[in-house]
């Protein structure tokens, strides 16, 4: 008894109460992450972009990026096997690094998800327009704007209606688009064009390194399942698995797609790098005009699923910031019936839609806007990944579970991510991307400075997550939760003392905000 551990008091309800706790199956969690990464869109678009930097090393760049994504997934899993947090990487960082770093991660994640959601909206609109044009329609600025407004609001509505419904929609859309993509790519690979033998691409290390940054952009969003931690049924199992599986699936699909396209354009002057719509060109060269509309359809669905997944993600980051008290408290409110962060969703979706619609109506070109948004978003994600990877070993040390593989993983990945980040800034030097990122960073810093000055206590306590509550613990009354009316006798911690009745937290006291 001498060394009986000190037991912290258990809460009667989770700090992130109001979300529907422990309801989502593993498949729905996986779908969220896969849609966030939108592998089918990445399959079609990224190999050509990577080829510009990597040349003959395109495929190896994707392999390297996959390894990198897996290492990042490993760092994230060190947290998600131990805690479930709707705030995603922001909350995880808070458990390892200082509140300042966590706040920076939160801002980076908001930028990342916000830009990715906007990019996916624009991407969906782009391919929808392409589809309409191919089917004989006429192009105008109206169609993309209408698509952005309709899809943006629909995504907001679905996200609001409940994460289970949106997860199912996302799963269906992503399955269809990945199947379409795989079918198209298998056909392309199975019917090679007659021509001069493809020269074996040289494996230049410099080429691989240069290609890693754009290839990594194909993975961004793959960690979005972390934001469903509190809502997943067995979160400590399903969330880390979903993130890792998404890295593997996206990696395999992208490597496969890159190989198909590199082989397809081996004989063309300039190779893959000079191509704008490589898959459609390859299909047309084989006399398969029907592939192009299918491709457009698949990409449209994939992008729209990505909108839904990222809106879910950004809303939960805002929700966590709100519960932490560092953003408006209102963001931390949840809908009484749908159990979703309805205020955060209700702000994010309309803002996205209005800003994009105005930009498009003002004459912003679709392609340029897409690239711009994706680049800014990639910057945000790189910062967030770097911070969470740095936080992982510190977190493990803090809870006394540090192992050398955790240190080694961070020691390998952190310098690489720093290098990639430097390359990213250098590459975007002088473009509006850097200006926008700098402006966002300054805004974040000002926000933090103000909080530091006015709300130092809130900054110190940042990082709410789905804590274990009295209800989750066997014999919670023994643990000292102070269950009201504890007439359960001496309580040996045996099952007899643990009626499901301690589920009193389902009662009216559980969620006072529901009355609102």
């Amino acid at each position, binding site marked *: 008894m001498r060394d009986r551990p000190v*037991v*912290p008091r258990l809460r009667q309800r989770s700090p992130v109460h109001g979300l529907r706790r422990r309801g989502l199956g593993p498949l729905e969690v996986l779908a969220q992450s896969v849609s966030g990464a939108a592998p089918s869109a990445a399959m079609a678009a990224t190999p050509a972009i990577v080829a510009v930097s990597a040349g003959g090393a395109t495929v190896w760049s994707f392999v390297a990026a996959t390894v990198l994504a897996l290492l990042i997934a490993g760092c994230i899993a060190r947290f998600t096997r131990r805690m479930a947090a709707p705030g995603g990487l922001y909350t995880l960082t808070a458990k390892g690094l200082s509140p300042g770093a966590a706040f920076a991660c939160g801002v980076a994640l908001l930028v990342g998800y916000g830009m990715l959601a906007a990019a996916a909206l624009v991407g969906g609109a782009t391919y929808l327009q392409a589809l309409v044009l191919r089917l004989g329609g006429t192009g105008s600025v109206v169609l993309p704007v209408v698509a952005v407004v309709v899809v943006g609001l629909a995504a907001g509505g679905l996200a609001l209606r409940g994460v289970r419904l949106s997860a199912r929609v996302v799963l269906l859309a992503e399955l269809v688009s990945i199947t379409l993509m795989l079918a198209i790519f298998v056909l392309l690979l199975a019917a090679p064009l007659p021509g001069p033998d493809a020269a074996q691409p040289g494996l230049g290390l410099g080429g691989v390194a240069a290609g890693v940054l754009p290839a990594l952009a194909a993975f961004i969003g793959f960690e979005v399942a972390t934001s469903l931690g509190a809502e997943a049924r067995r979160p*400590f199992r399903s969330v880390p698995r979903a993130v890792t599986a998404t890295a593997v699936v996206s990696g395999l699909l992208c490597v496969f797609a890159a190989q198909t396209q590199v082989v397809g354009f081996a004989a063309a002057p300039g190779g893959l790098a000079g191509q704008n719509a490589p898959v459609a060109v390859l299909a047309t060269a084989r006399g398969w005009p029907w592939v192009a509309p299918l491709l457009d359809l698949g990409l449209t669905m994939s992008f729209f699923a990505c909108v839904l997944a990222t809106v879910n993600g950004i809303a939960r980051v805002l929700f966590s910031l709100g519960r932490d008290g560092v953003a408006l408290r209102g963001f931390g409110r949840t809908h009484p019936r749908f159990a979703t962060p309805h205020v955060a969703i209700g702000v994010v979706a309309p803002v996205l839609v209005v800003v994009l619609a105005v930009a498009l109506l003002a004459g912003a070109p679709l392609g340029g806007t897409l690239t711009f948004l994706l680049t800014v978003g990639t910057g945000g994600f790189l910062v967030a990944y770097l911070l969470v990877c740095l936080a992982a070993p510190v977190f493990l040390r803090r809870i006394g*579970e540090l192992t050398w593989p955790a240190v080694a993983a961070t020691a390998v990945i952190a310098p690489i991510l720093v290098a990639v980040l430097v390359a990213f800034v250098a590459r975007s030097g002088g473009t509006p991307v850097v200006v926008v990122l700098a402006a966002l960073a300054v805004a974040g810093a000002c926000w933090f400075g103000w909080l530091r000055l006015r709300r130092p206590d809130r900054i110190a306590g940042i990082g709410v997550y789905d804590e*274990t509550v009295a209800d989750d*613990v066997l014999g919670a009354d023994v*643990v000292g939760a102070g269950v009201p009316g504890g007439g359960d006798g001496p309580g040996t911690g045996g099952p007899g003392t643990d009626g499901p009745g301690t*589920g009193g937290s*389902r009662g009216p006291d559980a969620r006072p905000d529901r009355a609102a």
Partner: protein
Amino acid sequence: MTSPRDPLPLSGRQPRAVRSALAVLEEVVAAGPGVTAKEISAALRLPQATTYRLLNLLVGEEYLVRLPDLKGFALGRRAARLALPVTVAPPTAARAVVDHLRGLVRWGVHLAWLGAGQVTLVDPDPDHPPSDAALLARYPQASALGRLLLAEQPDWRALVRDLRVFTEYTVSTPAALTAALDRVAADGLARQCGELRADRGCIAVGVRAPGDGRLVAGLALSGPAQRVAEPNPELVALLREHADRLAPLLA
């Protein structure tokens, strides 16, 4: 729900891993809630990395939980399923209430504890024997008493092993069961008609602790399936009245 997906025999170092996992569980019970991974590793002389993996595995399966400081461990709710529920015979006064109800109706009257997360018959009707007690404990979704219990859970999947079909009326899909449990939660009355045995049915109401309203027991009437399907307002009223009388005696 666990389905036996992988029938492979244990091989290599797996038996040792299973033993270690059980030892970890036992150590958490012995040391008390709040014990840390390092302490467990030291006490069991297990390598640290192995201990962390086992702990994460047991937390993932929800046999253990991490306490809010993320360092300490305690038994999770699911661990209750590893132990037989402790049952106590109901007091004489409570049995008298049950007997009184038996005198008023021509149906079988059964009393079961529900407090331990399992249906445990403690006063089955001697003249109208209920279904096998083990069956009721094992498939709570098919009995009225079990549904009272399931409707109380945050997620019924925690207590349901498989949705076995006993008769053509048995609820066999998760969606249908969720709907049935929502009705139980709304009405405070559980009902099954011919789902366990085609010719028998059951209605049941919960006995709740007067103070905090937690579910401690269930009182059930069983009879012919087609009679159970009828609304039976006076029977239900009688059942509720006796359940209320049992509350101060059982909680």
